[in-house]
């Protein structure tokens, strides 16, 4: 049985909660403990409320978990929101000089810290975070040295900052250990060598490891982390990084680079992706390899910029006019983001088409521990049928009609192979046929040639595999990041004796239709996904002819926790065919002030 604890750190944006969380995560990782972090925050630079949840365990964790059992309240608001969520055994750490706890639920240990006394009267306000972190680490039974080494690493260029933090943390640590009872869960060190990574960093590093040489972007949450990583590492790694005026320019620039023969990538979220769509069709008809990431957030339109949703599947499938081959992949975890980059660049070059990667806020902005050895792996590079030097062929046709539909690709610059790629329909030599009276034979040939390329793709995928109780007649079906919470939910149900299996899809277009039918036909299918309309359920029906018997959906902005899926499946097994779950804890609720046009009685405007 895994030992684990979920820590919540609450504060306003600008309070330093994020770095407190980072330091705790790093401290835990250095002890060989596995961590999964998700931050719920507002689209605000200062103020508001930010709630960082860290799930820390001595075995691997795949999701944010259910129940917070330790919290640091950096302000009164955080205390008021979250204290009532705590269950017996939980600890609640706060600055006793500033924050009033109210009545704690039974069995919850309140741990006020005399910050003023512990940090010294001249300390910066931010030092309350360090004192609290020291106290938490003490109550979790960590070695103090694990925390101090993180300060030494983070502030290595500023020894006086290291000293101030270590002193404040030690004061909190010693006070808490002396004054309060340790947390009931003891987390033992493991020997695992773990790296603490953000999903966006892993997408970016994965792209670099796959040989990406040109990266273009326009800032958009929650994809901006990829741009930041590329901007800070591009110089060392020889990656050309451009911030472009809009996502139309971004997509076109990435495709221009891809056409020249570099591995190029761009990333955005749903709104930016909408602007990229015309260019995706260009990559389709010009047969240009390019990797485009859409980090999904709550939609439509501006929607929920800082919240989770899996609502852009329809957009990705329908992006750009006409029929053309594309590949759509949704990584299933932060670790998978790394592998997906290796696969995406290979597929893009092998099949000479756009590869659309559907990440989401949960993965991209979430962070977790990964084995360092997992990251230190040379990627397989398969550039497909690529010609980098003059091979003496005097009759080169860029769009030659071949049995596989794949035409050997010459990179511009190679002598004696000149061609012009057009967004107009063209013949095998690239000459447009749009200006001729009509040419149904060439048109059909070229459409067929491009479409034929997709026949090979499914063979390059990792085959589908049932998880959980594979013999079960009930199968929970997910796509993308929902794998994490769903796999744990299925594991729990199996332990309770509920027979249920789990099938997770990652490759969305082209679809593993035959395998899906073989694994799902005749079973009770429950699709679990994060959107209102059931976009994946519809996709499964369209591609494999399998209609979900029931659906569990969430679209309230906060990610699935395993308990939501457990409860949802139980409801389904009792006979419901649609369960729309919601995060209901008090901390998720925000009282809103009346806005313009909302009359509040007695007020004057």
């Amino acid at each position: 049985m895994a030992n684990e604890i979920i820590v919540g750190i609450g504060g306003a944006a600008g309070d330093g909660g994020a770095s407190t969380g980072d330091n705790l995560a790093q401290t835990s990782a250095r002890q060989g403990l596995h961590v999964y972090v998700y931050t719920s925050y507002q689209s605000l630079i200062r103020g508001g409320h930010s709630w960082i949840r860290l799930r820390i365990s001595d075995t691997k964790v795949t999701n944010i978990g259910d129940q917070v059992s330790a919290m640091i309240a950096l302000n009164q608001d955080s205390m008021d929101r979250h204290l009532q969520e705590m269950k017996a055994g939980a600890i609640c750490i706060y600055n006793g000089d500033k924050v009033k706890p109210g009545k704690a639920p039974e069995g919850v240990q309140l741990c006020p810290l005399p910050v003023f006394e512990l940090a010294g009267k001249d300390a910066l306000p931010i030092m309350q975070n360090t004192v609290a972190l020291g106290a938490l680490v003490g109550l979790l039974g960590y070695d103090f040295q694990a925390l101090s080494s993180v300060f030494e690493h983070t502030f290595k260029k500023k020894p006086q900052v290291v000293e101030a933090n270590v002193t404040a943390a030690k004061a909190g640590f010693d006070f808490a250990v002396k004054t309060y009872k340790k947390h009931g869960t003891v987390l033992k060190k493991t020997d695992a060598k773990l790296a603490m990574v953000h999903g966006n960093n892993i997408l970016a590093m994965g792209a670099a490891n796959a040989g990406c040489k040109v990266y273009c972007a326009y800032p958009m949450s929650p994809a901006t982390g990829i741009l930041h990583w590329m901007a800070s590492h591009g110089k060392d790694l020889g990656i050309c990084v451009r911030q472009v005026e809009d996502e139309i320019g971004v997509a076109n620039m990435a495709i221009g680079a891809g056409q020249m023969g570099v591995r190029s990538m761009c990333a955005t979220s749903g709104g930016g992706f909408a602007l990229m769509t015309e260019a995706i069709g260009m990559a389709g008809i010009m047969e240009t390899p390019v990797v485009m990431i859409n980090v999904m957030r709550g939609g439509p339109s501006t929607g929920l910029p800082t919240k989770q949703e899996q609502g852009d599947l329809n957009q990705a499938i329908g992006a750009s006019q006409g029929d053309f081959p594309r590949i759509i992949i949704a990584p299933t975890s932060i670790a998978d983001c790394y592998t997906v980059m290796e696969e995406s660049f290979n597929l893009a070059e092998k099949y000479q088409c756009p590869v659309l990667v559907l990440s989401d806020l949960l993965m991209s902005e979430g962070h977790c521990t990964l084995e360092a050895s997992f990251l230190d792996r040379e990627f397989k590079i398969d550039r497909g049928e690529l010609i980098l030097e003059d091979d003496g062929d005097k009759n080169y046709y860029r769009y030659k009609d071949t049995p596989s539909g794949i035409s050997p690709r010459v990179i511009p610059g190679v002598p004696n192979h000149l061609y012009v790629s057009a967004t107009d329909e063209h013949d095998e030599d690239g000459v447009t046929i749009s200006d001729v009276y009509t040419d149904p034979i060439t048109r059909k040939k070229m459409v067929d040639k491009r479409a034929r390329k997709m026949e090979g793709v499914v063979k390059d995928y990792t085959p589908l595999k049932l998880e959980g109780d594979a013999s079960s007649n009930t199968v929970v079906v997910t796509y993308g990041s929902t794998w994490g919470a769903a796999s744990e939910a299925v594991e729990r149900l199996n332990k309770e004796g509920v027979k249920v299996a789990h099938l997770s899809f990652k490759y969305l277009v082209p679809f593993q239709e035959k395998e899906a039918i073989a694994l799902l036909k005749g079973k009770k299918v429950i699709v679990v996904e994060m959107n209102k309309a059931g976009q994946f359920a519809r996709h499964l029906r369209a591609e494999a002819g399998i209609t979900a018997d029931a659906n569990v959906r969430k679209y309230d902005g906060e990610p699935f926790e395993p308990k939501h899926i457990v409860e949802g499946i139980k409801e389904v097994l009792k006979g419901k065919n649609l369960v729309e779950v919601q995060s209901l804890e008090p901390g998720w609720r925000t009282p809103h002030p009346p806005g313009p046009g909302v009359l509040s009685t007695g007020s004057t405007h």
Partner: protein
Amino acid sequence: MTTATLQPRDAKLYKPEVPPDWCPGCGDYGVLTVLQRAVGELGILNENLMVVSGIGCSSNLPGFFKSYGMHSLHGRSLPVATGCKMANHEMTVIACGGDGDGYGIGQGHFIHSMRRNVNMTYIVMDNEIYGLTTGQTSPTSEPGMKTKSTPFGNPEGQLNPMALALAAGCGFVARGFSGDINHLKSLYTQAIQYPGFALIDVFSPCVTFNKQNTFGWFKERVYKLEDKGHDPSNWTAAMERAKEWGAQIPIGVLYKNPNPRPSIDAEDPALQGAGLATIKKLGLTSEQRKKLIAEYL
């Protein structure tokens, strides 16, 4: 690429088997022919040229030009061409298109490409009309002009691409006329050799849909800046000339920055060696991976 040491080549080498299919008498024929002569004069090999266009009559040009090329999307020639240059900065990149393509739907990219200062040449075949869609008003159409979309006269103002380019920080701003091809050739060669973003707006009359700004109309009005003692290194003087429209319209180099700032591709740390597209060993080295992983430990 070292243009300085290259031998001049025959313009015919840049003529493909596919002949242009523009309307007889279209100004774009002149633009194409002169471009073939100019790159020949500079001795640029066909395989080292990347010609990128948008969509429109004039954007068909890459199909009639023997080099590598991309006939991209409406209004997007500049970001596509920028991507090409980033991917292989050793190639000569020429972007082209019409006034609707560059100054209408592509306006955002136009301004930012000049600000970004990519080392490339941008040729706009400016006919003051949308031709391929059979004659609607364009951003450079004169106020009051009757077109199919403005049957009672164009109610909107006219964009001044020259003044806009100067304001956006473009280091080489020129205007040519496809009715004067020898003059135009010199603008092309100067633009291609300029070490930064170079704009040439070419009056390229539409003989089918623009009955107002005809060859004759331009012939009566254009004058050469070099004949009037214009100093192309003087930005303020260039701005004054850029405002001229009506009885007298200047052609020639309005502005050529005497101290060009380095182009973005010349400065980009990733573009200091061979073209990125020619690098054969891809992916991170073990050492690079270990260094990156160390950031997360």
